[in-house]
C-alpha cells in the first residue's frame, strides 16, 4: 500500500489503514523515543498517540502531505515526545514546590463520562465519535453507517447527544457536581 492509498483508506474511515501504518513504522518510531531516554512502553504510547493524531488529521481529507507519511509521523512523534519530556520535568519540579495537588474531581467527571459512553449503544457511540473526534460530516456518517439519508443521521445524533447529556447530568447531580 503506498501513501496515497493509505490516505484514501483513512479518508473513508477505514481503520485497517491505521493498523497497516502501525506495523510498518513501529520500529522506526519507537526507536526514536527509546534512543531519547524513553522506555519501550513510553515509546509505544507516543507512537500510538501520534498515529491517532495522524488519523484525526487525515480523516478530514484536508491533509496535504508535502512529505512521506513516515516523515510526517516521525515529526509528530518527536513533538509528542518533547512535550512528554517537558511534562515529566515539570512534574518533578511541581512535586518539590507543591507537594499535593488534586485533580480528583476532574478525573472523576472524566470517568463518569467515559463509563456512560461505554454503556451507550453502538450506534450512539459511533455517531458521536465520528462526529466529534473524527470530524466526519453528517453525510459521511450517514453513508458509513448505512442510513438512508443525512437527516436520519442528524436526528440520531441529536437524540444520542440528548441522551448522553441527560445521563451525565443525572450522574453529576448524584455526586453533587452540579449546583
Amino acid at each position, binding site marked *: 500500500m503506498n501513501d496515497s492509498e493509505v490516505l484514501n483508506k483513512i479518508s473513508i474511515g477505514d*481503520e485497517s489503514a*491505521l*493498523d497497516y501504518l*502501525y*506495523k510498518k513504522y*513501529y*520500529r522506526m518510531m519507537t*526507536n526514536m523515543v527509546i534512543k531519547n531516554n524513553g522506555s519501550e512502553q513510553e515509546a509505544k504510547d507516543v507512537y*500510538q*498517540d501520534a*498515529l*491517532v493524531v495522524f*488519523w484525526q488529521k487525515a480523516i478530514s481529507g484536508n491533509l496535504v502531505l508535502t512529505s512521506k507519511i513516515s516523515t510526517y509521523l516521525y515529526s509528530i512523534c518527536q513533538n509528542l515526545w518533547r512535550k512528554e519530556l517537558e511534562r515529566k520535568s515539570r512534574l518533578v519540579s511541581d512535586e518539590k514546590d507543591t507537594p499535593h495537588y488534586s485533580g480528583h474531581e476532574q478525573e472523576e*467527571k*472524566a470517568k463518569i*463520562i*467515559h463509563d456512560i*459512553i*461505554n454503556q451507550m449503544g453502538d450506534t450512539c*457511540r459511533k455517531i*458521536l*465519535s465520528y462526529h*466529534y*473526534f*473524527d470530524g466526519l460530516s453528517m453525510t459521511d456518517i450517514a453513508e458509513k453507517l448505512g442510513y438512508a439519508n443525512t437527516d436520519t443521521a442528524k436526528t440520531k445524533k*441529536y437524540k444520542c*447527544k*440528548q441522551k*448522553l*447529556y441527560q445521563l*451525565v*447530568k443525572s450522574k453529576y447531580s448524584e455526586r453533587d457536581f452540579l*449546583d
Partner: protein
Amino acid sequence: MSKGQSYEQLVGSYLDNEMSEKQRMDFENQLQSNPDLSKELGFQQEVINGVKNFRRLELKARLENIPIYTPVYQTIAFKAVAVVAITAGIGFGTYYLLNRGNESTLPKVELAYTDSTLAETEEVVPAIPQIQTTDTHSDTATSPDSEISKTESGTAQKSKKRDKSSTTASASTAKPNVVTPRVETFTDDEFESEEISALKTQSTETIAEPLSEAVEVATIKDKKNKFHYKFYENKLYLLGTFDDMPYEIIEINSKSGKKFFLYYKENFYRLLNDQVKPTPLERIENDSLVNELKIIQMNKSH
C-alpha cells in the same frame, strides 16, 4: 420548552457550528452576562471532550491489540541449515533440487565407498560439493569428472545429469567404485530434542542485532489456504484468518541461521524459512520442545 432545554439546544447549535454569524455573535454576548448559559457551555464542552477522549482511547486500544513481532536474540549452536532441512522431513532429493544453484554453501558430507547399486547413487552424489574418500582409487576420488571423460568413450552419454561420473565409472570398470553418501538422518523427535538442547543454551549470550533485521510478518486472508504460511522475500506470510486471535512469532537466531516459530491459539508451529510456497502449519507435538518455547516466550514478555 423549559429554559434548561433551550439552553441545551442553544449551546448545542453553537458547538456544532449550526449558527449564523449573527446568532453566533448574539450568543457570545449573552455568555458574558448569563452564568447559566456559560455553565451549560462548560458542561457540553466537557462531555464532548469526553467523547473525543473515548474515541482516542478506542483507537489506541485497537493499535494496542495489533501484534508486533518481537524477536528473541539468542545464540544457539544449531546444526547446519542443511541438516535442519533434512530432519524436517524434506527428502534429500528435494533438498538437492532446491540447492543445486548454491552448491558452494553446502556442508561437507563424509562419503564412503561401498558396493551399493548405481541407482542409489544417481540421485544423491551430485549434490555433494566436497567429497572425502576412503578409497585408494585416487583418480576417481580426486577428480571423478575428468577421469570419466577420459575413460568412458563408448559408454558415455547415458545421462546428462551431473552424476555422470559414477554412472560412467561403473560402466567402464569391472569393479565399479560407487560413491554412496553416508548421510546422517534424524527422526523428527531426534531433531526436536536437539533443538531443545540448543534452546537450553539460550541464556549464554545474546546477539546485539539491529531490530530492523527482523522479518516482516503479514497475514493474508486466503480462502484456498486456510492455515498455511510461506516465506517470500524475507517476509513471512500467514495465510488464513489470523485476525480473530492474536498470534506471536518467535525468532531464534543461531549461528546457522534463524529459526521461526508461530504461537497461535495456545499451540506452537514450526516455520521453515525456505518454504516459498504455501505450506500447511503443523503443530509441534513434542512436549519438551513446547515447554522450552513457552519458557522463551515468558522470558521475552518480561
